[in-house]
């Protein structure tokens, strides 16, 4: 049955599930970055999420925010490259926004994603439309702003759907940032690798909360 809220332990287990899902999705992410970027996104995310599992597995946290900050710290310190800093910033900023809450609810979701996405844009300088992970995080943040009244399950469902739609929409965009080779028009038709990661992350969070 769908969760109303998630405890600290449940939040931790949700993020472990997210990490395992990303590790399992490495080939998809590699292909996406090979098509538009330098092809190392899958390996980088796998490295980062493996560290996340190590950091969370069996660990205790005082708040749900600290769980998210631990995710960010693990990714930030093991991935390197642009995306390590970006995902690290995303989860650390989102986690900080959760304050000292000891459970994750609709309000938490509404606080997490806007803070996380804004910090990411601040760090990377990309705006929606630049064909980056921002094209998945910005719609997710937008959707999150109106879920504070919902259960964590419904809130994450709305966020995940928005991220998925944003990822799909990124196919039609022209790549401009953070890549070895800027492909310009050639990049149209394929989704941005980081956006794919964001869609998988939010979808897995929603699934967990729904189960």
């Amino acid at each position, binding site marked *: 049955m769908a969760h109303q809220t998630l405890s600290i332990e449940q939040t931790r287990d949700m993020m472990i599930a997210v990490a395992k899902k990303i590790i399992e999705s490495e080939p998809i992410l590699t292909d996406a970055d090979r098509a538009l970027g*330098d092809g*190392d996104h899958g390996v*980088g995310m796998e490295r980062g999420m493996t560290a996340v599992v190590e950091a969370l597995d069996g660990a205790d946290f005082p708040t749900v925010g600290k769980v998210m900050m631990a995710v960010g710290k693990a990714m*930030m*310190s*093991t*991935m*390197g*490259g*642009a995306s*390590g*800093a*970006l995902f*690290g*910033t995303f989860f650390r900023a989102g986690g900080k926004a959760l304050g000292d809450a000891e459970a994750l609810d609709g309000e938490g979701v509404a606080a997490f994603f806007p803070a996380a996405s804004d910090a990411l844009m601040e*760090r*990377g*300088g990309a705006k929606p439309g630049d064909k980056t992970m921002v094209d998945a995080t910005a719609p997710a943040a937008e959707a999150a702003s109106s879920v504070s009244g919902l259960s964590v399950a419904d809130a994450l469902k709305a966020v995940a759907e928005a991220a998925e739609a944003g990822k799909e929409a990124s196919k039609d965009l022209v790549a401009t*940032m*953070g890549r*070895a*080779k*800027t492909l310009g028009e050639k990049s149209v038709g394929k989704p941005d690798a980081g956006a794919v990661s964001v869609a998988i992350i939010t979808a897995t969070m929603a699934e967990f909360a729904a189960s």
Partner: protein
Amino acid sequence: MKKLINDPLKVADELVEGLVEAYNGDCKHVGARSIVKTDIPDGKVALLIGGGSGHEPIYHGLVGKNLADGAACGDIFAAPPPNIVLEATEAVDRGKGVLFLYGNYAGDVMNFDLGAELADDEDIDVRTVLIWDDVCSAAPDMKKNRRGIAGLVPIVKLVGAASQSAASLDELEAFATKASLQTRSVGVSMSPGSIPATGKPTFEIDDDVIGLGMGIHGEPGVGEIPMKPADELTPEMLDLIFEDFAKDEEVEALAEGDEVIVLVNSLGATTMMELLIVLRKVKELLTARGIKVYDVMVGPFVTCQEMAGISVSLTRLDDELKAAWDLPCQSVCYSKMEGRNGG
């Protein structure tokens, strides 16, 4: 391309271990993947450099006597993570603050900035000066978007020397800003290097063309031009540098009587033979404009594995920069005696 390595995923860690051995006791391994001098005096304003591995002898090869105090090393072609930047920062800090001096790449900026935030939590005073000498990577009015290439070497040489006697972080930051502003480079690519872990080429390019202004990872530049003799290509490269000094409001145009450091850099497989043939033409063109060569650097300093290509960099010197240049230095990347060639 056959490579003498072990585990392809451990290349960056093992090369830094080897680098420490190359320093034979003058530097030590710190934290996850940083290299730091063993004898940084108390009260010294510290200089930290760094970036992705795979471009040896930079970046970490510029740690040394009268050069950088430490380097935060990333994995192959990847920026060092913030925690590595923090470890290096803590190791070089002597209470007078730390100057971050590195090439302007998105991944590096994000990670060094995060590292600076973590250092700030530890009450370490950090300033950042970016190197963006590649004139082909953005227009003069957008020069803060430019990539950092081989100009990094004379800049770090100069700032390293200045850091030995800098009274404050402010003073060193101002010096580094000037050295960076007066350094401009143009690069050309002829063939790609290969990624150690996969053996795959870093980019593709046809046999009969040269990538003018192409970045060291294959980033786009001015565009592809037909392969041509050294004496025809060299003037095209220098003109782009002269033009940039002339167009940029922040600096004077290069003029008769100016004194410059000339760097002719190989990206890897391009031979010293070719660099010298290009240098010969560079000297002729500078002389024709009445620009004096204060000193010359020639060799593979900023590479991308066995990539073929070169870059030419000019650093205009004033008396303060000259005094810094004359200091001797010792490192894996660049060493010199007191004074200068022809001095």
